[in-house]
């Protein structure tokens, strides 16, 4: 062996070994010193997981502290992603999930460290069976969660609203202080949405140490969730139940307002939906059914839809007419059932005519010819002005989603919207609440409340005991004007000739006005109309007439006549709301009014009026 060569080789080898050690030390320096703190953080992030503990949402009560929505526990079944040898067939039978769906779920989930949620929304009875067989499926865990308990099922669904997972923009919202995660349920509709931040509370945190398979080893820190604040709504559950029962499957809306402070006492929009269907992620079938349903159950008709008001608008004509001096003691119109203007003919709902009509009979019997003339004398500008004074053509500002403003037509409006000038005939039909004029049921109720409170309008609210009860508007219309109109509205119910006399009751002095809004042009026999073209029924009312406590509007889509279809609902709602109060007041006094009422009920006639 060449000694010289070998020694040279050894020298080279030592350099080489030295080089490897140097390189490795540099690499070590790079990892442990240059990137040490960053990798140390990564090792902590490996093992420390922050689990969000959802806070129970606040309970929603009605104005009498009757719970409308509570919370309840439910269970979810998850699989730890460690479990590889899972008996898919057995598991699919146990959980009654399709085998292929289950296998796909598990396969996707195995790439992540979090437990794979297999089934959600289970209750005690379901869980007992699973718990018994849990030992057959290692890695199967059962977790408890909280969800909403809708005690009254779909009652006032549009008021309560529903919950759902947040959309991306809500997660990205800079105001979201990480309280909302992608699994947090937040309010998506109704007061659940409107008062979400109040109801939601603050999620707690479970800071845990986990191993590589996501198994929780110990809890390092636990921050209790803070329950959301409860909400007491201004809604009266009795009035709400009475209203929803009375609709008997018909589509429509009802809004009742306390005219003295703007509290919403009842808000109905039918058909509606079951809020419980949404809470755990809505079933796609139910969702598409709700969306394709021709009766639009997801539409809140009380404030999202505007319709021609029909004759309930005559109350505004009357106030404008009296205030402007058009309607005075010498003003009267002879109604022969028809008014001609140019080539057009404008009819009265009573074919034979009303004869000579003055105020208040014009309102009591809702004579169209009387109001054509009032409209003619007022002119569209003044009609427009008074309509707007009573809040028509603008949103009421109740912050439920998607409120419509409706339309109060005028010369300027027509020029802008239709590029045409205003015609007198349009003034006439606007005066009887037809034509371009459209209002929402909540605007109608607000209008009724303003008449009831002599022109005062309060910010509308769904919460009981509003903080700010200064009127947002106080019309400088003479009290005498209101007195006259209110008396006439009382006669609508009280006078045997009145269009809503059918709901007369001696117990409560109800003032109201009926409306029948045409869906198609030209008056035809209502009973022969197909449902889609049948008139809309309206009724606005307030009671007690002297010191109003409730003002409301009832709207029934294609309901026919206001007097026969809409007014009875108003009566029941008023009774449901005022009766418990009356009972409180007269607890000692004997009740003898009921006999009288029965007699009156028998006298109800099928008056074809509006």
């Amino acid at each position: 062996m060449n000694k010289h060569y070998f020694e040279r080789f050894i020298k080279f080898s030592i350099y080489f070994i030295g080089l490897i050690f140097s390189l490795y030390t540099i690499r070590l320096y790079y990892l442990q010193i240059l990137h040490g703190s960053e990798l140390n953080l990564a090792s902590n992030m490996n093992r420390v997981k922050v689990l969000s503990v959802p806070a129970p949402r606040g309970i929603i009560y009605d104005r009498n502290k009757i719970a409308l929505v509570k919370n309840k526990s439910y269970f979810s079944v998850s699989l730890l992603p460690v479990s590889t040898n899972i008996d898919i067939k057995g598991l699919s039978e146990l959980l009654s999930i399709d085998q292929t769906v289950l296998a796909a779920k598990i396969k996707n989930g195995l790439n992540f460290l979090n437990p794979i949620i297999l089934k959600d929304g289970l209750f005690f009875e379901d869980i007992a069976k699973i718990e018994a067989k849990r030992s057959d499926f290692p890695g199967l865990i059962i977790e408890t969660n909280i969800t909403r308990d809708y005690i009254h099922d779909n009652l006032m669904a549009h008021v309560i609203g529903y919950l759902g997972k947040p959309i991306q923009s809500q997660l990205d919202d800079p105001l979201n202080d990480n309280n909302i995660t992608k699994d947090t349920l937040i309010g998506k509709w109704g007061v659940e949405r409107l008062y979400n931040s109040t109801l939601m509370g603050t999620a707690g945190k479970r800071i845990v140490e986990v191993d590589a398979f996501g198994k929780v080893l110990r809890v390092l820190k636990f921050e209790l969730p803070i329950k959301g604040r409860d909400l007491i709504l201004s809604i009266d559950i009795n009035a709400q139940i009475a209203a929803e029962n009375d609709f008997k499957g018909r589509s429509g809306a009802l809004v009742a307002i306390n005219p003295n402070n703007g509290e919403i006492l009842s808000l109905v929009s039918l058909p509606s939906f079951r809020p419980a269907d949404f809470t755990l992620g809505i079933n796609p079938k139910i969702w598409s059914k709700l969306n394709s349903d021709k009766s639009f159950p997801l539409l809140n008709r009380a404030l999202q839809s505007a319709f021609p008001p029909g004759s309930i608008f005559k109350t505004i004509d009357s106030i404008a007419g009296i205030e402007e001096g058009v309607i005075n003691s010498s003003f009267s119109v002879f109604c022969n059932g028809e008014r001609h203007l140019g080539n057009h003919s404008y009819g009265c709902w009573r074919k034979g005519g009303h004869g000579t009509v003055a105020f208040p009979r014009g309102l009591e019997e809702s004579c169209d010819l009387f109001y054509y003339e009032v409209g003619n004398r007022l002119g569209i500008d003044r009609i427009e002005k008074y309509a707007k004074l009573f809040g028509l053509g603008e949103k009421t500002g109740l912050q439920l989603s998607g409120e419509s403003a409706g339309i109060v037509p005028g010369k300027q409006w027509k020029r802008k919207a239709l590029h045409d000038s205003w015609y007198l005939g349009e003034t006439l039909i606007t005066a009887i609440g037809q034509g371009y004029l459209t209002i929402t049921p909540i605007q109608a109720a607000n209008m009724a409340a303003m008449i009831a409170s002599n022109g005062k309008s309060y910010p509308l609210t769904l919460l009981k005991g509003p903080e700010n009860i200064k009127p947002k508007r106080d019309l400088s219309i003479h009290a005498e004007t209101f007195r006259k109109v209110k008396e006439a509205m009382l006669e609508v119910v009280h006078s045997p000739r009145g269009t809503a006399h059918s709901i007369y009751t001696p117990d409560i002095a109800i003032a109201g006005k009926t409306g029948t809004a045409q869906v198609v042009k030209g008056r035809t026999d209502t009973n022969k109309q197909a449902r889609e073209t049948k008139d809309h029924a309206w009724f606005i009312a307030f009671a007690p007439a002297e010191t109003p406590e409730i003002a409301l509007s009832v709207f029934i889509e294609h309901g026919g006549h206001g007097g026969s279809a809409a007014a009875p609902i108003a009566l029941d709602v008023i009774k449901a709301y005022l009766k418990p109060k009356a009972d409180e007041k007269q607890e000692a006094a004997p009740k003898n009014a009921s006999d009288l009422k029965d007699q009156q009920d028998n006298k109800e006639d099928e008056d074809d009026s509006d």
Partner: protein
Amino acid sequence: MIQTNKKRLYEQFDWFILLLLLLLCGIGILTIYSATRPAIESVHPNFYIKQAVWVGCGLIALIFVVFIDYSFLRTIAYPSYIIGLAILLFVLVAGQGKMGARRWLNLGFISFQPTEFFRLIFIVALAKYLSSFKGLMTMRNFAFAVFAFAIPPFILIMKQPDLGSGLILIILFVMIVLARGIEKKFLIQMVITCIIVVPIFGSIVFGHLKEYQRNRIIAFIDSEADPQGIGYQIEQSRITIGSGMVTGKGYLKGTQGPLRFLPEKHTDFIFSVFAEEWGFLGVTVVFMLYFLLFMRGIDTSLKAKDDFGKMIAIGLTFMLFIYFTINTGMVLGIMPVVGVPLPFISYGGTTLIANFMTIGLLINIRMRRLGLLY
């Protein structure tokens, strides 16, 4: 005279390398204890006890090896080599496998990886051949060495298949041959040939690799490609080492191993666990121990009394060095993931005993460097 010689022989016993060996084994047992800690209160797996038992067995093997004059190995080198090859062949037929590789031989009372011991036999046999002629290697010598000592075991090991051991064998072969010395003219020719042949050969080998072996190479090149597979191992190893920072998290304070983020925590990736708990300073100390060990091995080779001894010593030292380099390179993320243990520290009986025998041979050669007889 014989008595005196024997006494002088023991005076030459290399206590230093034995000390280094025991220090590294001690570090190994302590780190295995820490790495296999259960995450929550439960039974501590007894890997550390087994390892301690293996260290005891290793010491007995070492003493046994020390007392046989390595010159005697010259007479049994070739027969042992042929028996070794036969055993490798037997493993292919009757071996037991993990992950599709047949590496283990079960003798009823014990099972072991014959490849680990074969490496020693291979080095001794190759050393015998390389010390059988004078001067630098000729083309003929080289060709013989390749066909007699490189290709047969390489094929048998790759058939198991054990990519890591096969490559180590080839690297070891090349290093020993280079140490022996090749004629300059021929060396140049060979380098040129290699440049042409290796890529072709490499792609053929790559084509025949098992899928997990291919994944290891792919994952090394792009660790982001599959975060839960082999790239995940590399990434977790990087995190484990880096999180130790300068002084480490402290003994028994490491999290990556017990919480199972780091796979193979007490075997191939034990270095990471040590680095996590002892930090840059601790690893520097361990590096020093290894460096001293390799230097001692090289020094033994330089001082050996004959070419046979020189070739064995350099071969054994290189073998330990290759193991160390590939293992630490792998956990540091600068070499592909090859299932190679860290000598003396990783858990594993066969390797440990083979490594004790390696050190025993080095001690043996150093002890007899003065040419004393007994």
